[in-house]
């Protein structure tokens, strides 16, 4: 057991925090959000210089090769500074897919990711899928040596700005992934603005033709890749939320110590002290679960990983809601204004819950996995009617059967 960060991790954290504190002010962030692209080229270049863009990429492929806790450190800082740049989707999620399954030709892109020249986006969710990973209606059909893709992809982070997309589509043998240049004919990308200032895209594929070598990994092998990527994303979002909660708690604390009413700082009121004690408790529970999520990313057992990831996302979502709502409430009128960072943290924390599965989704995933486990343990002792066995909720658990 060891809860300390390595010297390198402390260095990454300190240099990133210093850079963001100096550069990524609330005004700068507002300007980036107003621009609508969700990514400031100068910030992105600095990210490359700091080395964080190559964190998810091994050295032989042009990166610097970090582990899950290096990523956790970075994501916490990005959360603390309310960074809207698409770091997670490019550097951790999509890079991770190519590292794991990309062909040598596809992996050549990774050096560009590390230097900041290339940005990748994962186009997986669809208008009707509501985070179910296996609910892929987009089709890819073989036409000679090419594939032709038809369908719609929804709420793709950085989907309009990325120069390459990882697109999932159903083929004869299951879900398959394709690496596709962002500017392609027969693909329409509509950039939309998110409440947190980041950019997302709705994407329509109408006869998009891609060569055979666009396939990532084996045909039909896409779902495990998407699931692994979603686990990386969830762990990253959990860390980001922890950083954001830290900062929001600090802001709120500073506010109650300086804001005076009835002649005293409002922080002297027990009603507020107890609310803040609960905020701290829930922020610390969230931190604990973000550690657990990152620690379990590498475990071999898929069941164990799924349980930890869903537990973390659920609990962090719950903490984020409580901390966010309470911070706004305690700030009073200032909390509902656009002027302070408070409301911006609240909005980001709220949207994290709606990304890669909300609380209900992950509670369902967790409960289904846990019930299945209980059944297999208790089948012989407690009740073993055929009805009981049939009702093991496999069908309600999309993540319980990747690859089908």
């Amino acid at each position, binding site marked *: *057991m*060891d*809860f*300390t*960060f390595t010297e390198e991790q402390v260095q990454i954290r300190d240099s990133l925090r210093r850079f963001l504190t100096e550069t990524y002010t609330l005004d700068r962030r507002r300007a980036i959000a107003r621009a609508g692209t969700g990514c400031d080229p100068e910030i992105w270049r600095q990210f490359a210089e700091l080395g964080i863009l190559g964190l998810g990429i091994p050295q032989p492929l042009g990166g610097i090769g970090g582990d899950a*806790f290096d990523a*956790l450190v970075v994501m916490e800082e990005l959360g603390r500074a309310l960074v809207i740049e698409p770091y997670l989707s490019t550097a951790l999620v999509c890079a991770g897919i190519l590292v794991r399954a990309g062909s040598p030709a596809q992996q050549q892109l990774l050096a560009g990711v590390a230097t900041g020249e290339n940005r990748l986006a994962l186009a997986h969710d669809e208008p009707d899928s509501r985070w179910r990973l296996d609910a892929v209606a987009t089709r890819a059909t073989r036409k000679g040596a090419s594939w032709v893709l038809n369908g719609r992809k929804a709420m793709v982070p950085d989907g309009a700005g990325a120069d390459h997309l990882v697109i999932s589509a159903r083929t004869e043998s299951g879900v398959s992934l394709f690496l596709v240049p962002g500017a392609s004919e027969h693909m329409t990308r509509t950039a939309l603005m998110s409440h947190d200032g980041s950019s997302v895209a709705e994407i329509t594929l109408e006869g998009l033709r891609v060569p055979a070598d666009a396939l990532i990994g084996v045909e039909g092998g896409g779902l495990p890749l998407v699931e692994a990527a979603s686990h990386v994303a969830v762990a990253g979002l959990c860390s980001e939320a922890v950083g954001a909660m830290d900062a929001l708690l600090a802001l709120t*604390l500073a506010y*109650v*110590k300086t804001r005076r009413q009835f002649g005293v700082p409002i*922080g*002297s009121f*027990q009603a507020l*002290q*107890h609310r*803040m*004690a*609960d905020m*701290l*408790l829930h922020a*610390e*529970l*969230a931190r*604990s*679960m973000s*550690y*657990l999520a*990152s*620690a379990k990313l590498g475990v071999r057992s898929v069941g164990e990983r799924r349980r*930890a990831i869903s*537990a973390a996302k*659920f*609990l962090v979502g719950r903490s984020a809601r409580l901390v966010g709502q309470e911070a706004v409430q305690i700030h009073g009128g200032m909390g509902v204004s656009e002027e302070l960072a408070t409301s911006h943290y609240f909005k980001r924390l709220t949207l994290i819950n709606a990304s890669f599965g909300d609380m209900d989704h992950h*509670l*369902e995933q*967790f*409960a289904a996995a*846990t*019930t299945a486990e*209980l059944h297999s343990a*208790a089948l012989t002792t*407690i*009740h073993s009617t055929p*009805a*009981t066995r049939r*009702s093991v*909720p496999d069908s309600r658990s999309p993540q319980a059967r990747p690859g089908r």
Partner: protein
Amino acid sequence: MDLNFSAEEERFRSEVRAFVAAKLPAAIRDKVLGHKRLEREDFLTWVRILNTRGWVAPSWPRRFGGQEWDPARQLILEEECALAGAPPVLSFGPRMVAPVIMTFGNQAQQEYFLPRILNGEHWWCQGYSEPGAGSDLASLKTRAERRGDTYVVNGQKTWTTLAQYADWIFCLVRTSQEGRPQAGISFLLIDMKSPGITVRPIVMLDGEHEINEVWFDNVEVPVANRIGEENAGWTYAKFLLGHERVSNAALGPSKRALRELKAIAAATPSGGGRPLIEVPRFRDRIAEVEIDLMALEVMVLRVIAMDRERHTPGPEASLLKLQGSQIQQAISALAMEALGPYAALHQPLALSAGWTGSSAGPPLGLGITGRYFNYRKVSIYAGSNEIQRNIIARHMLGL
């Protein structure tokens, strides 16, 4: 960063598991797992068994008979014992009064009391709360007047857990009316057999006798039984509270209770042909508390790691107590709700060890509702959760 126990700690876990499986008497285990009433001898039998391995208070310093265990090992021991259905080793002796005696007591007190805590000869209870002094502990009124080599103690303590079994009571008493209320308090060790002590049962809401009033009527206590300085008792009392660290998180007991909750929900028909655990509305509530328990466990490990580094306990224990108690209450509520209409059954006779009849209702239902009622105490005792929030606000948030 590494959240796993070491290979050595895991080996130790297996060792504890094997020991408990071999040595815990089945009759005691069945009482604990079946929510039957535990008697004095049940607790003490288990203490004596643990003492054969030096496991009653293994985190004590070696010179007092301990093994200077790391808190992680202590956690593993408590968890394995709880999961197997062992009675808890009550805190009052090994984890409350003992550290005070070790730190502030004199050599004679150390030599007399500490070995008797380890071998189960002395059962300790805690004389803190009074009818007029609960959260505002320093307002306590039980007074001790010095007459030569003895104090004469008069007053009343209350909510005293298992005082009916106790041999000794550690008491906060008022020895001075001067200055701040905290300044006039002394810490006395009092023999429960002293003339003038009366123990009166307080029946709790579950119908059980667990707590008491302890009355002192001109009870003579040798001055030699005072810890440290006169009027410095408040310092010792605060020190003591800092030592109830991770056990207030109740990880082991809550893991056992969760396991039991799932067994109840899996064995309970929901009326629709499927067991209750498959009814999503109920299943989700179990899932949420299970996730809470996962987070609490990581928190406990983090606090242990923090303590290890800075060698002094910090205020994080309040977070553990606050959340640990909420989880205990949540699980006990779900288990009761799982019983549906059978939750109403009150079968006090079936809780006693001598009961040979059968009990009505579901097989796993005995004592479940009683525990729900009883467990309202966990957010009240050892510093109510409101007091914990005060501590968090003051010491962690600087408010």
